[in-house]
Protein backbone atom coordinates (compact mmCIF):
# COMPACT_ATOMS: atom_id res chain seq x y z
CA UNK A 1 0.00 0.00 0.00
CA UNK A 2 1.22 3.45 -0.77
CA UNK A 3 -0.77 5.48 1.75
CA UNK A 4 1.13 8.50 3.01
CA UNK A 5 0.38 7.30 6.53
CA UNK A 6 -0.74 3.80 7.53
CA UNK A 7 -4.52 3.51 7.66
CA UNK A 8 -4.97 0.90 10.37
CA UNK A 9 -8.67 0.31 9.77
CA UNK A 10 -7.78 -0.74 6.22
CA UNK A 11 -4.75 -2.83 7.25
CA UNK A 12 -6.54 -4.84 9.95
CA UNK A 13 -9.64 -6.83 9.05
CA UNK A 14 -11.47 -9.33 11.27
CA UNK A 15 -9.92 -12.32 9.53
CA UNK A 16 -6.70 -11.01 7.97
CA UNK A 17 -3.98 -8.41 8.55
CA UNK A 18 -1.69 -6.65 6.12
CA UNK A 19 1.97 -7.69 5.89
CA UNK A 20 3.24 -4.11 6.10
CA UNK A 21 2.22 -4.06 9.78
CA UNK A 22 5.29 -6.19 10.47
CA UNK A 23 7.78 -4.37 8.26
CA UNK A 24 6.90 -0.69 7.91
CA UNK A 25 9.09 1.54 10.14
CA UNK A 26 6.22 4.06 10.29
CA UNK A 27 4.01 1.41 11.85
CA UNK A 28 6.74 0.66 14.39
CA UNK A 29 7.02 4.37 15.23
CA UNK A 30 3.24 4.54 15.71
CA UNK A 31 3.37 1.44 17.93
CA UNK A 32 5.97 3.05 20.16
CA UNK A 33 3.78 6.13 20.60
CA UNK A 34 0.40 4.44 20.85
CA UNK A 35 1.20 1.09 22.50
CA UNK A 36 4.64 0.77 24.10
CA UNK A 37 4.86 4.30 25.45
CA UNK A 38 1.21 4.58 26.37
CA UNK A 39 -0.48 1.40 27.53
CA UNK A 40 0.50 -0.76 30.53
CA UNK A 41 3.68 -2.68 29.77
CA UNK A 42 5.24 -5.37 31.97
CA UNK A 43 8.61 -4.19 33.30
CA UNK A 44 9.88 -6.48 36.08
CA UNK A 45 9.04 -8.45 39.20
CA UNK A 46 9.27 -7.34 42.80
CA UNK A 47 11.30 -10.45 43.69
CA UNK A 48 14.16 -9.07 41.57
CA UNK A 49 14.58 -6.17 44.02
CA UNK A 50 13.85 -7.61 47.44
CA UNK A 51 15.90 -5.32 49.68
CA UNK A 52 15.73 -1.53 50.04
CA UNK A 53 18.33 -0.11 47.65
CA UNK A 54 18.17 -3.04 45.22
CA UNK A 55 17.89 -2.05 41.60
CA UNK A 56 17.79 -3.75 38.21
CA UNK A 57 17.82 -2.30 34.71
CA UNK A 58 14.81 -3.11 32.56
CA UNK A 59 13.11 -1.95 29.40
CA UNK A 60 9.77 -0.31 28.77
CA UNK A 61 9.44 -0.17 24.99
CA UNK A 62 12.69 1.49 23.92
CA UNK A 63 13.11 3.14 27.30
CA UNK A 64 16.02 2.06 29.53
CA UNK A 65 14.37 1.92 32.93
CA UNK A 66 15.90 1.42 36.38
CA UNK A 67 13.54 -0.48 38.67
CA UNK A 68 14.51 0.40 42.23
CA UNK A 69 13.33 -0.29 45.75
CA UNK A 70 13.57 2.87 47.79
CA UNK A 71 14.44 3.15 51.46
CA UNK A 72 10.70 3.18 52.15
CA UNK A 73 10.36 -0.27 50.54
CA UNK A 74 8.37 1.08 47.58
CA UNK A 75 9.14 0.17 43.96
CA UNK A 76 10.09 2.96 41.54
CA UNK A 77 10.60 3.04 37.78
CA UNK A 78 13.10 5.70 36.73
CA UNK A 79 14.29 6.57 33.25
CA UNK A 80 18.04 6.10 32.93
CA UNK A 81 18.89 9.62 31.80
CA UNK A 82 20.69 12.35 33.70
CA UNK A 83 18.69 15.60 33.83
CA UNK A 84 21.85 17.55 33.01
CA UNK A 85 23.34 16.21 29.75
CA UNK A 86 21.36 12.98 29.26
CA UNK A 87 24.18 10.57 30.18
CA UNK A 88 23.21 7.16 31.57
CA UNK A 89 23.23 7.41 35.36
CA UNK A 90 23.23 3.63 35.84
CA UNK A 91 25.63 1.39 33.94
CA UNK A 92 25.42 -1.79 36.04
CA UNK A 93 22.74 -4.31 35.19
CA UNK A 94 21.79 -4.74 38.85
CA UNK A 95 23.02 -3.90 42.29
CA UNK A 96 22.21 -2.18 45.55
CA UNK A 97 22.69 1.53 46.05
CA UNK A 98 20.95 4.42 47.76
CA UNK A 99 21.91 6.71 44.91
CA UNK A 100 23.02 6.92 41.28
CA UNK A 101 25.92 9.15 40.39
CA UNK A 102 26.25 10.31 36.81
CA UNK A 103 29.85 9.74 35.70
CA UNK A 104 29.86 12.76 33.38
CA UNK A 105 29.67 15.67 35.87
CA UNK A 106 28.96 13.90 39.11
CA UNK A 107 25.29 14.74 39.51
CA UNK A 108 23.84 12.41 42.09
CA UNK A 109 20.27 11.19 42.45
CA UNK A 110 18.54 9.31 45.26
CA UNK A 111 17.29 5.86 44.15
CA UNK A 112 13.79 7.38 44.15
CA UNK A 113 14.83 9.95 41.53
CA UNK A 114 15.45 13.21 43.43
CA UNK A 115 18.57 15.20 42.61
CA UNK A 116 20.66 15.37 45.78
CA UNK A 117 24.03 16.63 44.61
CA UNK A 118 25.69 18.62 41.81
CA UNK A 119 29.40 19.45 42.19
CA UNK A 120 30.66 23.06 42.32
CA UNK A 121 27.10 24.07 43.09
CA UNK A 122 27.85 27.79 43.18
CA UNK A 123 27.65 27.63 39.40
CA UNK A 124 23.91 27.15 39.94
CA UNK A 125 23.65 29.65 42.81
CA UNK A 126 24.24 27.03 45.51
CA UNK A 127 22.20 24.24 47.01
CA UNK A 128 18.42 24.35 47.03
CA UNK A 129 18.18 25.98 43.62
CA UNK A 130 17.64 23.49 40.79
CA UNK A 131 16.75 20.28 42.63
CA UNK A 132 13.00 20.65 42.23
CA UNK A 133 13.07 20.86 38.45
CA UNK A 134 15.97 18.51 37.62
CA UNK A 135 15.23 15.03 38.89
CA UNK A 136 15.35 11.68 37.13
CA UNK A 137 12.11 11.18 35.23
CA UNK A 138 9.79 8.59 36.70
CA UNK A 139 7.56 6.38 34.57
CA UNK A 140 4.30 8.33 35.04
CA UNK A 141 2.25 5.40 36.29
CA UNK A 142 3.36 2.23 38.06
CA UNK A 143 1.27 -0.57 39.51
CA UNK A 144 1.64 -4.27 40.14
CA UNK A 145 -0.35 -7.47 40.33
CA UNK A 146 0.98 -10.51 42.20
CA UNK A 147 4.41 -8.89 42.18
CA UNK A 148 4.43 -8.35 38.40
CA UNK A 149 5.30 -4.66 38.00
CA UNK A 150 3.83 -2.75 35.07
CA UNK A 151 4.50 0.80 33.93
CA UNK A 152 2.62 3.20 31.69
CA UNK A 153 4.24 6.22 30.06
CA UNK A 154 0.80 7.88 29.85
CA UNK A 155 -0.10 10.01 32.89
CA UNK A 156 -3.75 9.05 32.45
CA UNK A 157 -5.66 6.13 31.06
CA UNK A 158 -7.22 2.86 32.16
CA UNK A 159 -5.98 1.49 35.48
CA UNK A 160 -3.79 -1.63 35.53
CA UNK A 161 -6.74 -3.60 36.90
CA UNK A 162 -8.86 -2.40 33.96
CA UNK A 163 -6.08 -3.23 31.50
CA UNK A 164 -5.46 -6.72 32.88
CA UNK A 165 -9.15 -7.53 33.16
CA UNK A 166 -9.65 -11.26 32.77
CA UNK A 167 -5.89 -11.87 32.48
CA UNK A 168 -5.41 -10.96 36.16
CA UNK A 169 -7.01 -14.24 37.17
CA UNK A 170 -4.33 -16.15 35.26
CA UNK A 171 -1.55 -14.40 37.23
CA UNK A 172 -3.52 -15.32 40.36
CA UNK A 173 -3.65 -18.91 39.19
CA UNK A 174 0.14 -18.97 38.76
CA UNK A 175 0.69 -17.54 42.25
CA UNK A 176 -1.68 -20.12 43.72
CA UNK A 177 0.74 -22.87 42.67
CA UNK A 178 3.04 -21.60 45.42
CA UNK A 179 2.27 -22.88 48.92
CA UNK A 180 3.01 -19.31 50.04
CA UNK A 181 1.01 -17.74 47.22
CA UNK A 182 4.03 -15.97 45.73
CA UNK A 183 5.81 -16.14 42.39
CA UNK A 184 9.52 -15.31 42.36
CA UNK A 185 11.54 -14.52 39.26
CA UNK A 186 14.99 -15.00 40.71
CA UNK A 187 16.64 -17.52 38.37
CA UNK A 188 18.14 -14.91 36.02
CA UNK A 189 17.20 -14.18 32.43
CA UNK A 190 18.21 -15.57 29.06
CA UNK A 191 18.24 -12.95 26.31
CA UNK A 192 17.50 -14.10 22.81
CA UNK A 193 18.10 -11.71 19.93
CA UNK A 194 15.41 -12.24 17.33
CA UNK A 195 15.39 -10.75 13.85
CA UNK A 196 11.63 -10.53 13.61
CA UNK A 197 8.81 -8.16 14.43
CA UNK A 198 7.58 -8.40 18.03
CA UNK A 199 4.00 -9.12 16.98
CA UNK A 200 4.98 -12.44 15.38
CA UNK A 201 6.03 -13.55 18.87
CA UNK A 202 2.98 -12.16 20.65
CA UNK A 203 0.70 -13.95 18.18
CA UNK A 204 2.61 -17.24 18.35
CA UNK A 205 2.56 -17.47 22.16
CA UNK A 206 -1.03 -18.72 22.25
CA UNK A 207 -1.11 -20.23 18.76
CA UNK A 208 -2.11 -23.83 19.39
CA UNK A 209 -1.79 -24.73 15.72
CA UNK A 210 2.02 -24.75 15.45
CA UNK A 211 3.35 -26.97 18.29
CA UNK A 212 2.89 -30.31 16.55
CA UNK A 213 4.77 -29.05 13.52
CA UNK A 214 7.46 -26.69 14.84
CA UNK A 215 8.13 -28.82 17.92
CA UNK A 216 7.50 -32.26 16.43
CA UNK A 217 11.23 -33.02 16.54
CA UNK A 218 11.61 -32.64 20.29
CA UNK A 219 8.21 -34.16 21.09
CA UNK A 220 9.14 -37.28 19.12
CA UNK A 221 12.58 -37.57 20.73
CA UNK A 222 11.35 -37.19 24.31
CA UNK A 223 7.94 -38.84 23.95
CA UNK A 224 6.41 -35.63 25.24
CA UNK A 225 2.64 -35.58 25.74
CA UNK A 226 2.51 -31.83 25.02
CA UNK A 227 1.80 -32.30 21.33
CA UNK A 228 -1.47 -34.08 22.07
CA UNK A 229 -2.71 -31.06 24.04
CA UNK A 230 -2.63 -29.15 20.76
CA UNK A 231 -4.02 -31.82 18.49
CA UNK A 232 -7.14 -31.53 16.40
CA UNK A 233 -8.94 -33.73 18.94
CA UNK A 234 -7.80 -31.83 22.03
CA UNK A 235 -10.47 -30.59 24.43
CA UNK A 236 -8.25 -27.65 25.39
CA UNK A 237 -9.49 -24.25 24.22
CA UNK A 238 -8.06 -20.97 23.02
CA UNK A 239 -9.65 -18.01 24.76
CA UNK A 240 -9.67 -14.33 23.88
CA UNK A 241 -9.43 -12.73 27.34
CA UNK A 242 -10.07 -9.23 26.00
CA UNK A 243 -7.74 -6.19 25.84
CA UNK A 244 -5.41 -8.17 23.57
CA UNK A 245 -4.78 -10.87 26.20
CA UNK A 246 -5.33 -14.53 25.39
CA UNK A 247 -4.75 -18.02 26.68
CA UNK A 248 -4.50 -21.65 25.73
CA UNK A 249 -6.65 -23.12 28.47
CA UNK A 250 -5.33 -26.65 28.87
CA UNK A 251 -7.40 -27.39 31.96
CA UNK A 252 -10.05 -29.48 30.16
CA UNK A 253 -7.32 -31.97 29.22
CA UNK A 254 -5.76 -32.01 32.69
CA UNK A 255 -9.15 -32.36 34.40
CA UNK A 256 -9.94 -35.28 32.14
CA UNK A 257 -6.71 -36.98 33.23
CA UNK A 258 -7.39 -35.99 36.85
CA UNK A 259 -3.80 -36.59 37.97
CA UNK A 260 -1.95 -34.12 40.21
CA UNK A 261 1.24 -32.75 38.58
CA UNK A 262 0.48 -34.16 35.14
CA UNK A 263 0.54 -30.52 33.93
CA UNK A 264 4.26 -30.54 34.82
CA UNK A 265 4.81 -33.88 33.12
CA UNK A 266 5.43 -35.68 36.38
CA UNK A 267 3.63 -37.45 39.22
CA UNK A 268 3.11 -36.42 42.82
CA UNK A 269 5.42 -39.22 43.96
CA UNK A 270 8.31 -37.40 42.24
CA UNK A 271 7.74 -34.12 44.10
CA UNK A 272 6.42 -35.22 47.51
CA UNK A 273 7.61 -32.19 49.46
CA UNK A 274 5.84 -29.82 47.10
CA UNK A 275 2.48 -31.60 47.04
CA UNK A 276 2.52 -31.98 50.83
CA UNK A 277 3.22 -28.26 51.20
CA UNK A 278 0.38 -27.45 48.81
CA UNK A 279 -2.11 -29.66 50.68
CA UNK A 280 -1.14 -28.06 53.97
CA UNK A 281 -1.54 -24.60 52.48
CA UNK A 282 -4.73 -25.04 50.49
CA UNK A 283 -6.55 -27.96 52.13
CA UNK A 284 -9.43 -29.23 50.02
CA UNK A 285 -8.65 -26.79 47.19
CA UNK A 286 -5.19 -28.29 46.67
CA UNK A 287 -6.39 -31.18 44.49
CA UNK A 288 -7.92 -28.87 41.91
CA UNK A 289 -4.85 -26.62 41.88
CA UNK A 290 -2.46 -29.57 41.49
CA UNK A 291 -4.56 -31.09 38.70
CA UNK A 292 -5.24 -27.91 36.71
CA UNK A 293 -1.68 -26.60 36.86
CA UNK A 294 -0.26 -23.37 35.50
CA UNK A 295 -1.67 -20.89 32.99
CA UNK A 296 -0.53 -20.44 29.39
CA UNK A 297 -1.36 -16.78 28.96
CA UNK A 298 -0.20 -13.87 26.81
CA UNK A 299 -0.63 -10.53 28.55
CA UNK A 300 -0.69 -7.75 25.96
CA UNK A 301 1.71 -6.52 24.76
CA UNK A 302 4.82 -8.19 26.19
CA UNK A 303 4.35 -10.68 29.05
CA UNK A 304 3.92 -14.37 28.29
CA UNK A 305 3.59 -17.08 30.90
CA UNK A 306 4.00 -20.59 29.49
CA UNK A 307 3.22 -22.71 32.54
CA UNK A 308 6.67 -22.77 34.15
CA UNK A 309 8.38 -20.08 32.11
CA UNK A 310 8.02 -16.34 31.93
CA UNK A 311 8.88 -14.53 28.71
CA UNK A 312 9.15 -10.82 28.10
CA UNK A 313 9.17 -9.37 24.59
CA UNK A 314 11.22 -6.22 24.07
CA UNK A 315 10.80 -4.43 20.75
CA UNK A 316 13.92 -3.05 19.06
CA UNK A 317 12.79 -2.08 15.56
CA UNK A 318 10.23 -3.21 12.97
CA UNK A 319 12.45 -6.19 12.16
CA UNK A 320 14.05 -7.00 15.49
CA UNK A 321 13.19 -7.75 19.09
CA UNK A 322 14.68 -9.46 22.13
CA UNK A 323 13.03 -12.31 24.00
CA UNK A 324 13.81 -12.56 27.72
CA UNK A 325 13.04 -15.84 29.42
CA UNK A 326 13.31 -17.32 32.89
CA UNK A 327 11.93 -20.18 34.94
CA UNK A 328 9.04 -19.52 37.28
CA UNK A 329 10.05 -20.02 40.90
CA UNK A 330 7.28 -20.63 43.41
CA UNK A 331 7.96 -19.56 46.97
CA UNK A 332 7.93 -22.55 49.28
CA UNK A 333 7.84 -25.07 46.41
CA UNK A 334 11.03 -26.84 47.47
CA UNK A 335 12.30 -29.42 45.00
CA UNK A 336 9.93 -28.24 42.27
CA UNK A 337 11.92 -25.03 41.78
CA UNK A 338 15.14 -26.74 40.72
CA UNK A 339 13.19 -28.97 38.36
CA UNK A 340 11.51 -25.93 36.81
CA UNK A 341 14.91 -24.36 36.18
CA UNK A 342 16.34 -27.54 34.69
CA UNK A 343 13.36 -28.04 32.41
CA UNK A 344 13.35 -24.39 31.36
CA UNK A 345 17.07 -24.35 30.55
CA UNK A 346 16.48 -27.28 28.21
CA UNK A 347 13.50 -25.62 26.53
CA UNK A 348 13.98 -21.88 26.21
CA UNK A 349 16.53 -19.29 25.18
CA UNK A 350 18.96 -19.23 22.24
CA UNK A 351 19.77 -22.96 22.47
CA UNK A 352 16.40 -24.09 23.82
CA UNK A 353 15.05 -27.27 22.33
CA UNK A 354 11.66 -25.56 21.93
CA UNK A 355 12.29 -21.82 21.61
CA UNK A 356 15.17 -21.93 19.15
CA UNK A 357 12.76 -23.51 16.67
CA UNK A 358 10.02 -20.97 17.38
CA UNK A 359 12.59 -18.26 16.81
CA UNK A 360 13.70 -19.83 13.56
CA UNK A 361 10.05 -19.60 12.46
CA UNK A 362 9.78 -15.94 13.51
CA UNK A 363 12.88 -15.07 11.53
CA UNK A 364 11.74 -16.97 8.44
CA UNK A 365 8.33 -15.28 8.72
CA UNK A 366 10.06 -11.93 8.74
CA UNK A 367 12.03 -12.81 5.61
CA UNK A 368 8.85 -14.10 3.96
CA UNK A 369 7.15 -10.80 4.71
CA UNK A 370 9.55 -9.12 2.28
CA UNK A 371 7.61 -10.81 -0.55
CA UNK A 372 4.93 -8.50 -1.86
CA UNK A 373 2.28 -11.11 -2.68
CA UNK A 374 -0.03 -12.19 -1.20
CA UNK A 375 -0.22 -9.00 0.82
CA UNK A 376 -2.17 -10.45 3.74
CA UNK A 377 -1.69 -12.86 6.66
CA UNK A 378 -4.69 -15.07 7.22
CA UNK A 379 -6.39 -15.24 10.63
CA UNK A 380 -9.61 -17.06 9.85
CA UNK A 381 -8.89 -20.46 11.38
CA UNK A 382 -11.82 -21.49 13.61
CA UNK A 383 -13.85 -18.35 12.98
CA UNK A 384 -16.87 -20.44 11.94
CA UNK A 385 -16.77 -22.54 15.12
CA UNK A 386 -15.99 -19.81 17.65
CA UNK A 387 -18.37 -19.55 20.60
CA UNK A 388 -18.93 -17.27 23.58
CA UNK A 389 -18.40 -18.91 26.96
CA UNK A 390 -20.20 -18.37 30.26
CA UNK A 391 -17.85 -15.47 31.09
CA UNK A 392 -18.81 -13.76 27.83
CA UNK A 393 -15.38 -14.46 26.28
CA UNK A 394 -14.72 -15.75 22.78
CA UNK A 395 -13.47 -19.32 22.77
CA UNK A 396 -12.06 -21.45 19.97
CA UNK A 397 -10.72 -24.97 19.71
CA UNK A 398 -7.13 -25.69 20.81
CA UNK A 399 -5.71 -25.01 17.34
CA UNK A 400 -7.89 -22.04 16.40
CA UNK A 401 -6.75 -18.47 15.81
CA UNK A 402 -9.18 -16.92 18.28
CA UNK A 403 -6.27 -15.47 20.28
CA UNK A 404 -4.70 -13.71 17.29
CA UNK A 405 -8.02 -12.15 16.34
CA UNK A 406 -8.32 -10.84 19.90
CA UNK A 407 -4.78 -9.45 19.74
CA UNK A 408 -5.48 -7.56 16.52
CA UNK A 409 -8.84 -6.25 17.64
CA UNK A 410 -7.22 -4.58 20.66
CA UNK A 411 -4.22 -3.47 18.62
CA UNK A 412 -6.53 -1.69 16.19
CA UNK A 413 -8.33 0.09 19.04
CA UNK A 414 -5.02 1.38 20.41
CA UNK A 415 -3.56 2.34 17.03
CA UNK A 416 -6.69 4.27 16.04
CA UNK A 417 -6.73 6.19 19.33
CA UNK A 418 -4.14 8.62 17.98
Amino acid sequence: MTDPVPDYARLIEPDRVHGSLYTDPRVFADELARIWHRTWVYVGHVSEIRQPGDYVRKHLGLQDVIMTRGGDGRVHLLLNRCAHRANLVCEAERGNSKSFRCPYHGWTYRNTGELIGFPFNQGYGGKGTIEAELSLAAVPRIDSHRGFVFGSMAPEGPTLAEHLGEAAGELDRLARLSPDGEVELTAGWLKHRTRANWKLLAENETDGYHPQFVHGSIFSVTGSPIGALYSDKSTAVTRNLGNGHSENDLRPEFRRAGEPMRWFGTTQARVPGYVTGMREAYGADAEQILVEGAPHVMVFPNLFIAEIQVFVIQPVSAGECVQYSTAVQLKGAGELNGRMISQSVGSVGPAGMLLADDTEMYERNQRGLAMLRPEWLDLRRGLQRERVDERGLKVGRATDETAMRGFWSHYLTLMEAA
Partner: protein
Amino acid sequence: MTAPAGPDLDLRQIELFLYREARYADEHDYDAWEALWTDDALYWVPAGGDLTEPGAQMSVIYDNRSRITTRLNQLRTGRRYAQSPPSSLRRVISNVEVLGREGSDILVGANFMLAESRDRGVEFWAGRTIYRLRIADGEFRLAAKQVLLVNRDQPLPTLAFLI
Protein backbone atom coordinates in the same frame (compact mmCIF):
# COMPACT_ATOMS: atom_id res chain seq x y z
CA MET B 1 45.29 -41.82 19.65
CA THR B 2 47.39 -42.38 22.72
CA ALA B 3 47.80 -40.00 25.60
CA PRO B 4 50.43 -40.01 28.29
CA ALA B 5 49.08 -40.97 31.68
CA GLY B 6 51.97 -39.61 33.64
CA PRO B 7 52.59 -36.12 35.01
CA ASP B 8 54.25 -34.87 31.84
CA LEU B 9 51.27 -34.04 29.69
CA ASP B 10 51.94 -33.62 26.04
CA LEU B 11 50.30 -30.32 25.11
CA ARG B 12 50.39 -31.28 21.46
CA GLN B 13 48.30 -34.39 22.15
CA ILE B 14 45.81 -32.29 24.05
CA GLU B 15 45.60 -29.78 21.21
CA LEU B 16 44.99 -32.52 18.68
CA PHE B 17 42.09 -33.77 20.80
CA LEU B 18 40.58 -30.27 21.04
CA TYR B 19 40.91 -29.79 17.28
CA ARG B 20 39.21 -33.10 16.64
CA GLU B 21 36.33 -32.23 18.96
CA ALA B 22 36.01 -28.87 17.18
CA ARG B 23 36.01 -30.51 13.76
CA TYR B 24 33.24 -32.94 14.73
CA ALA B 25 31.16 -29.99 15.96
CA ASP B 26 31.89 -27.87 12.88
CA GLU B 27 30.97 -30.72 10.54
CA HIS B 28 27.83 -31.82 12.47
CA ASP B 29 29.33 -35.28 13.01
CA TYR B 30 26.98 -35.95 15.89
CA ASP B 31 27.90 -39.60 16.41
CA ALA B 32 31.63 -38.94 16.62
CA TRP B 33 31.08 -35.90 18.86
CA GLU B 34 28.78 -37.83 21.21
CA ALA B 35 31.32 -40.64 21.53
CA LEU B 36 33.88 -38.23 23.03
CA TRP B 37 31.86 -37.67 26.21
CA THR B 38 32.15 -39.53 29.50
CA ASP B 39 29.04 -40.78 31.32
CA ASP B 40 29.25 -37.97 33.88
CA ALA B 41 29.47 -35.35 31.15
CA LEU B 42 28.57 -31.68 31.57
CA TYR B 43 28.13 -29.43 28.54
CA TRP B 44 27.60 -25.93 29.91
CA VAL B 45 27.15 -22.55 28.26
CA PRO B 46 26.46 -20.07 31.07
CA ALA B 47 24.31 -16.99 30.56
CA GLY B 48 25.16 -13.63 32.08
CA GLY B 49 24.79 -14.46 35.74
CA ASP B 50 26.78 -15.92 38.54
CA LEU B 51 28.78 -19.04 37.68
CA THR B 52 28.79 -20.53 41.14
CA GLU B 53 25.26 -21.92 41.32
CA PRO B 54 24.34 -23.26 37.88
CA GLY B 55 21.45 -25.33 39.25
CA ALA B 56 19.77 -22.21 40.62
CA GLN B 57 20.29 -19.99 37.56
CA MET B 58 19.28 -20.03 33.93
CA SER B 59 22.02 -21.15 31.52
CA VAL B 60 22.02 -21.10 27.74
CA ILE B 61 22.94 -24.80 27.84
CA TYR B 62 23.37 -27.01 30.90
CA ASP B 63 23.33 -30.58 29.58
CA ASN B 64 24.18 -33.72 31.46
CA ARG B 65 24.99 -36.85 29.45
CA SER B 66 21.34 -37.75 29.01
CA ARG B 67 20.39 -34.30 27.78
CA ILE B 68 23.34 -34.24 25.37
CA THR B 69 21.78 -37.31 23.77
CA THR B 70 18.36 -35.66 23.67
CA ARG B 71 19.86 -32.57 22.03
CA LEU B 72 21.70 -34.67 19.45
CA ASN B 73 18.66 -36.85 18.80
CA GLN B 74 16.62 -33.76 18.10
CA LEU B 75 19.25 -32.63 15.60
CA ARG B 76 19.27 -36.10 14.04
CA THR B 77 15.54 -35.89 13.24
CA GLY B 78 16.34 -33.36 10.53
CA ARG B 79 13.36 -31.33 11.80
CA ARG B 80 15.27 -29.29 14.36
CA TYR B 81 14.45 -26.25 12.22
CA ALA B 82 16.95 -23.97 13.94
CA GLN B 83 19.57 -26.33 12.44
CA SER B 84 17.71 -27.50 9.36
CA PRO B 85 19.46 -26.71 7.15
CA PRO B 86 22.51 -26.84 9.44
CA SER B 87 24.71 -23.78 9.91
CA SER B 88 27.98 -23.74 8.05
CA LEU B 89 30.63 -23.51 10.76
CA ARG B 90 34.37 -23.08 11.18
CA ARG B 91 36.14 -22.32 14.42
CA VAL B 92 39.71 -21.62 15.42
CA ILE B 93 41.04 -22.67 18.82
CA SER B 94 44.08 -21.02 20.29
CA ASN B 95 45.88 -20.06 23.53
CA VAL B 96 45.66 -23.66 24.71
CA GLU B 97 46.99 -24.08 28.25
CA VAL B 98 46.86 -26.81 30.86
CA LEU B 99 45.29 -25.10 33.85
CA GLY B 100 45.76 -27.91 36.33
CA ARG B 101 44.62 -31.33 37.41
CA GLU B 102 41.72 -32.44 39.56
CA GLY B 103 42.21 -36.04 40.54
CA SER B 104 42.90 -37.79 37.29
CA ASP B 105 41.13 -35.09 35.23
CA ILE B 106 43.06 -32.49 33.30
CA LEU B 107 41.69 -28.94 33.08
CA VAL B 108 42.53 -27.18 29.86
CA GLY B 109 41.71 -23.62 28.86
CA ALA B 110 41.55 -22.26 25.33
CA ASN B 111 40.12 -19.33 23.40
CA PHE B 112 38.03 -19.70 20.28
CA MET B 113 36.61 -17.72 17.38
CA LEU B 114 33.82 -19.18 15.31
CA ALA B 115 32.07 -18.04 12.14
CA GLU B 116 28.53 -19.29 11.60
CA SER B 117 26.82 -18.82 8.27
CA ARG B 118 23.19 -19.52 7.56
CA ASP B 119 20.40 -17.97 5.53
CA ARG B 120 19.92 -15.34 8.24
CA GLY B 121 23.50 -14.12 7.77
CA VAL B 122 26.94 -14.60 9.32
CA GLU B 123 27.30 -14.60 13.09
CA PHE B 124 30.62 -14.20 14.80
CA TRP B 125 31.04 -16.09 18.07
CA ALA B 126 33.98 -15.87 20.43
CA GLY B 127 34.85 -16.91 23.93
CA ARG B 128 36.85 -19.06 26.27
CA THR B 129 36.37 -22.77 26.74
CA ILE B 130 37.37 -24.73 29.82
CA TYR B 131 37.67 -28.43 29.08
CA ARG B 132 37.84 -31.22 31.62
CA LEU B 133 39.63 -34.12 29.97
CA ARG B 134 39.98 -37.64 31.25
CA ILE B 135 42.18 -40.43 29.97
CA ALA B 136 40.43 -43.75 29.57
CA ASP B 137 41.89 -46.76 27.78
CA GLY B 138 44.76 -44.61 26.58
CA GLU B 139 42.48 -42.03 24.94
CA PHE B 140 41.29 -38.60 25.91
CA ARG B 141 37.60 -38.30 26.75
CA LEU B 142 35.60 -35.14 27.37
CA ALA B 143 34.14 -34.98 30.90
CA ALA B 144 33.08 -31.32 30.84
CA LYS B 145 33.08 -28.38 28.49
CA GLN B 146 32.23 -24.91 29.73
CA VAL B 147 31.90 -22.26 27.04
CA LEU B 148 32.15 -18.67 28.29
CA LEU B 149 30.94 -16.45 25.46
CA VAL B 150 32.42 -12.97 25.50
CA ASN B 151 28.93 -11.52 25.01
CA ARG B 152 27.04 -13.85 27.33
CA ASP B 153 25.52 -10.90 29.20
CA GLN B 154 24.04 -9.53 25.94
CA PRO B 155 21.14 -10.78 23.82
CA LEU B 156 22.43 -13.75 21.82
CA PRO B 157 21.16 -14.99 18.47
CA THR B 158 19.93 -18.56 18.18
CA LEU B 159 22.64 -21.03 19.20
CA ALA B 160 21.35 -24.36 17.96
CA PHE B 161 24.63 -25.81 16.66
CA LEU B 162 27.29 -27.45 18.86
CA ILE B 163 29.51 -24.75 20.26
